[in-house]
């Protein structure tokens, strides 16, 4: 018999069924790094940032890195104290009221779902580009088929257990980053600074405007938080993975930005294929093949890692009973959320396959999907940063550090969100976002009316159960 606080312990964890405490630190960090897909970001994001920040592009990346590291610190306040599978929403629920946790939940699910779509699109179009370099121009149907095939492979790997999928992610991502480092080392070694052009200094406003697209290179870096239940030592490996990913992605992006800004000297903004152009200019056009291979593998790893993250968030929501409970079931042998995989992946694969199959330009699809995903992640980051000091105060462990971090991060993220809204006013993005918002609101109202108890209890995590405590019996 147990008395006092131990009497209330559950017999087993509410997230039982996952392969608990079984992943090493390398596999956990690979999850975060791959979700952020730094290799793809290195090749594409600096040119986008340069359209607003010009020659100060590097500073935009420095600021975005600082912001990402601060967000990682806020996430660390939670992940050093609790292990969850539901990413930011499980964490946010411990500091903010259920409504905010629900908003975080909807934002993060949309973020991961659309990021899977974007990664499938990216893998497909850069695979096509790679084939085109060998002289085989594929029709649109091939791109759609490639996206479907990759989704099927990802589904199988993610189903077969977290260790297999995490190790595959680790291997594929290592290849893509190695390729990128080779490319940028060659470019830095061969590049001679272009003659000074007449590029105007963009000023502080330009640097600030560049932070939003630069932050786009980081989204997904929090994905290790979905492996809290499965990591062997979640309270150290998850916060380290998130913080380390913010730093690594920041460093890689800054290297990429320095290389490209130097190479174009002010003309980087609006370059469609900056790295390829640079490579051709320096007589190393074979780099283009490596580049396309690196970006493709990066998107493949991103597909896998993001699928891992997405199905675990859906699993948590199933256990929270705010979606059909079947989503919270796990496969008896593989110990993965198989129903969530079966529901989410067809949806994630159908959208890019339909868009690519219909002949929509791949780069447009990719850009729109990434913009929508960014919106979800920005909301998620903003809420988790707001929640961190409130959570610490609730458990009586508040120190000045987290308060200062939140005081800096929340206004910066709020400004970024406003910048995002202003930048996304045209095109199909606002329509999609409005549709998503309406669906989320309807879902929230339905929960409020029908199941207020489930909403109030949102935020399942791997809490201490009777098996985890010292077996000594209280006399």
């Amino acid at each position: 018999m147990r008395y006092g606080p131990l009497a209330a312990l559950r017999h087993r964890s509410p997230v039982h069924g996952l392969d608990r405490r079984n992943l090493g630190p390398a596999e956990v960090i690979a999850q975060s790094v791959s979700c952020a897909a730094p290799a793809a970001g290195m090749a594409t994001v600096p040119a986008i940032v340069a359209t607003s920040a010009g020659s100060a592009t590097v500073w935009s990346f420095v600021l975005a890195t600082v912001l990402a590291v601060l967000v990682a610190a806020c996430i660390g306040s939670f992940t050093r104290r609790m292990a969850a599978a539901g990413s930011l929403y499980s964490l946010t629920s411990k500091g903010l009221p259920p409504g905010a946790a629900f908003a975080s939940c909807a934002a993060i699910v949309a973020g991961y779902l659309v990021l899977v779509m974007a990664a499938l699109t990216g893998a497909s179009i850069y695979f096509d580009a790679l084939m085109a370099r060998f002289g085989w121009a594929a029709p649109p149907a091939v791109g759609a088929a490639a996206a479907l095939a990759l989704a099927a492979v990802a589904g199988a790997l993610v189903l077969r257990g977290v260790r297999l999928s995490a190790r595959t992610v680790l291997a594929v991502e290592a290849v893509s980053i190695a390729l990128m480092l080779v490319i940028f080392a060659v470019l830095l070694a061969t590049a001679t600074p272009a003659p000074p052009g007449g590029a105007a200094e963009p000023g502080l406003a330009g640097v600030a405007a560049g932070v939003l697209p630069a932050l786009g290179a980081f989204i997904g870096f929090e994905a290790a938080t979905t492996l809290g239940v499965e990591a062997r030592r979640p309270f150290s490996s998850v916060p380290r993975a998130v913080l380390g990913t913010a730093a690594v992605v920041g460093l890689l992006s800054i290297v990429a930005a320095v290389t490209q800004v130097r190479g174009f000297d002010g003309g980087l903004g609006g370059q469609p294929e900056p790295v390829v152009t640079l490579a051709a200019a320096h007589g190393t056009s074979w780099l283009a093949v490596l580049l396309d291979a690196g970006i493709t593998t990066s998107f493949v790893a991103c597909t896998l890692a993001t699928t891992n993250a997405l199905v675990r968030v859906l699993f948590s929501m199933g256990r929270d009973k705010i979606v059909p409970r079947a989503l919270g079931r796990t496969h008896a042998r593989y110990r993965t959320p198989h129903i969530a995989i079966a529901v989410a992946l067809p949806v994630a694969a159908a959208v890019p396959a339909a868009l690519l199959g219909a002949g929509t330009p791949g780069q447009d699809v990719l850009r729109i999907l990434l913009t929508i995903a960014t919106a979800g992640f920005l909301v998620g980051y903003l809420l988790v940063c707001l929640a961190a000091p409130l959570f610490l105060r609730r458990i009586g462990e508040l120190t000045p550090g987290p308060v200062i971090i939140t005081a800096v991060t929340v206004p910066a993220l709020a400004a970024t969100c406003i910048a995002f809204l202003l930048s996304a006013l045209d095109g199909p993005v606002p329509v999609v976002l409005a549709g998503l918002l309406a669906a989320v609101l309807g879902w929230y109202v339905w929960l409020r009316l029908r199941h207020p108890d489930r909403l109030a209890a949102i935020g399942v995590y791997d809490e201490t159960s009777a098996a985890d405590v010292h077996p000594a019996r209280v006399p």
Partner: protein
Amino acid sequence: MTDPLPLSGRQPRAVRSALAVLEEVVAAGPGITAKEISAALRLPQATTYRLLNLLVDEEYLVRLPDLRGFALGRRAARLALPLTPVPSTAARAVVAHLRGMVRWGVHLASFATGHVELVDTDPDHPPAEPALIARYPHASALGKLLLAEQPQWRAVVRDLRRFTEHTVDAAELDRQLAGIAEVELARQCGELRADRGCLAVPVRSPDGTTLVAGLALAGPPNRVAEPNEELVALLREHATRLAPLLA
């Protein structure tokens, strides 16, 4: 907000503080909060929180479900040698009685420490691998009794080592443990050593809830694999007689 400082041998104060935090949790009992520990030990708050997070990461402490309170974790049990209870003379007499009735080795194991502790082994038929039985519960009938009682046996078993071709794997263990929980009889046929087998039944507290000990018969594996209905009935009868003497 940075990572916990790495502990090296050059930081005796940090080690001392960590031990003091552990002692304070033991002294105050489960549910003590970080702030209370910091106040009781006069440690700076940030230091206390960092040490607590470190000790939770190492599983010496756990956070209770309210995330405020702390309690000793399962791993803390490794810091002290478990006290093995010596069975009373009355209990040993029951075991000796059973030995007089069968031609098998009769062993009694206590589960009070959370491990298989052989507390009364047959002097005429000593157990084959007493050290391995405690360390690898998946390979013995007594160990399987203990595992069948756990909410998650994976939390207890670190290594499903294969000793013979009959040693169970995870899927087979899952299947067997479900059966053991149902019929309250565990069996092991040549899974630890090819020439030995074992039958074991649980000894539960008289109210039937807590598993306190296991009573086992050891013999050749082909004999263990038989139904042995009379033998099992005899074993259960003695286990029932042991219950009030051990619990």
